[in-house]
């Protein structure tokens, strides 16, 4: 296998790739950070109900500078707008939406995803550093589908798709799809299943950077 340097998808391309797979009508929660970018690539005419766990259904685009409403933020504490059709609920109802399986999808960032769908994305377990979980465990356990949007490997090249998570778990067996800079991978009963590769990347290229068997369709 030749060691060609594969460029892979950029962060915005990853977000756009995931956005393309979200059909109209879904209720979708986008995690803090990279997943938040997805909203930028869902055109307004394809109506998706974006949920924010602090009690919003119907998050709209970011406000113009100077037009922020101090009463409107998302889970990442960034200013937001509401789109027509938006609604506000309290925190128990917002997590009732999550835990009750009413979200068609949530897209989270990840430290590691295991071949059985286990997700680790909340703690690196560093001693002396306060852990913080937010809504990650509720989202991981509650949404109908959990997609993860993350780089395929760590900065020092270790796989983030693994046989078994080493980091503390967020949720058990809940991830159904992973979008990375290199590939789109489903998590099936058989394990990781390659669905799509970044331009120039082959199954073998992706397998070598993946810590578990990567099945082919």
């Amino acid at each position, binding site marked *: 296998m030749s060691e060609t340097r594969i460029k892979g998808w950029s962060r915005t391309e990853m977000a756009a790739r995931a956005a393309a797979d979200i059909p109209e*009508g879904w209720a979708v929660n986008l995690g803090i950070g990279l997943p938040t970018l997805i909203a930028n690539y869902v055109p307004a005419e394809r109506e998706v*109900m974006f949920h924010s766990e602090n009690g919003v259904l119907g998050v709209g685009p970011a406000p113009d500078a100077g037009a922020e409403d101090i009463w409107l933020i998302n889970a990442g504490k960034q200013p937001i707008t509401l*789109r027509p*059709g938006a609604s506000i609920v309290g925190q128990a109802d917002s997590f009732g939406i999550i835990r009750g399986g*009413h979200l068609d999808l949530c897209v989270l960032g990840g430290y590691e995803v295991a071949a059985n769908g286990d997700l680790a994305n909340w703690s690196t377990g560093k001693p002396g550093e306060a852990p913080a979980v937010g809504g990650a465990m509720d989202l991981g356990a509650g949404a109908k589908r959990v997609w993860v949007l993350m780089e395929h490997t760590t900065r020092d090249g270790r796989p983030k798709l693994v046989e078994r998570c080493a980091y503390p778990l967020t949720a058990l067996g809940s991830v159904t799809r992973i979008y990375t800079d290199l590939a789109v991978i489903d998590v099936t009963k058989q394990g990781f299943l390659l669905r799509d590769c970044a331009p120039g990347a082959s199954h073998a290229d992706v397998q070598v950077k993946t810590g578990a068997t990567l099945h082919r369709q």
Partner: protein
Amino acid sequence: MIDKFVPDIDAALEGIGDGATIMVGGFGAVGQPHALVDALGERGLRDLTIIANNAGGDFGGLPKLIAQGAIRKVICSYPRASGKTAFDALYAQDRIELELVPQGTLAERIRAAGAGIPAFFTPTGAGTQLAEGKEIRIINGRPCILETALAAEFALIEAWEADRWGNLTYRRTGRNFNPLMASAATLTIALAHRKRELGAIDPDAVITPGLFVDRIFIAETTS
């Protein structure tokens, strides 16, 4: 474009068949979607399980459906009404099952189903006949009963305003069980009295966010 409005009651009720488990909103007659329930009665269905607060009454809707013999089992808090009802007659003849649930426990079980809480402890009913056969645990010195979430395949509810995303408001005591049931059914069908443009309902005033609602039938009323 998301558009949950349906043109007629047939489209609203599509897919409800024999043996279905159906929640019906309302406290007595108020907040009960009579037109939906009456139309359901015309379908000649059998073996339905109904989850509702009341089963008796001298109005149409649910009492009429019971009289039509469509219902195998009722899960409710108050099957009686002043005066003899169709439910009473069927019950006396052992032709209808009753699961009696304290009203607050009924509401909480439905809410739990909607909110993804599979079971909870409650002090309500501890030490009574309605606790028989249930798990009891002393919590903070008080006996409590373990109760489980109560879901349904369908919910028939009544709302006041609706928009095409399914956002709903309710009117006064017409609210009652309706928002809970909207959250606890696989398919939620709302009868609403006012059709609103998307964005016309203040986001702070929405009681049932649109994601809980599948179909909306606008009733032709002037009330």
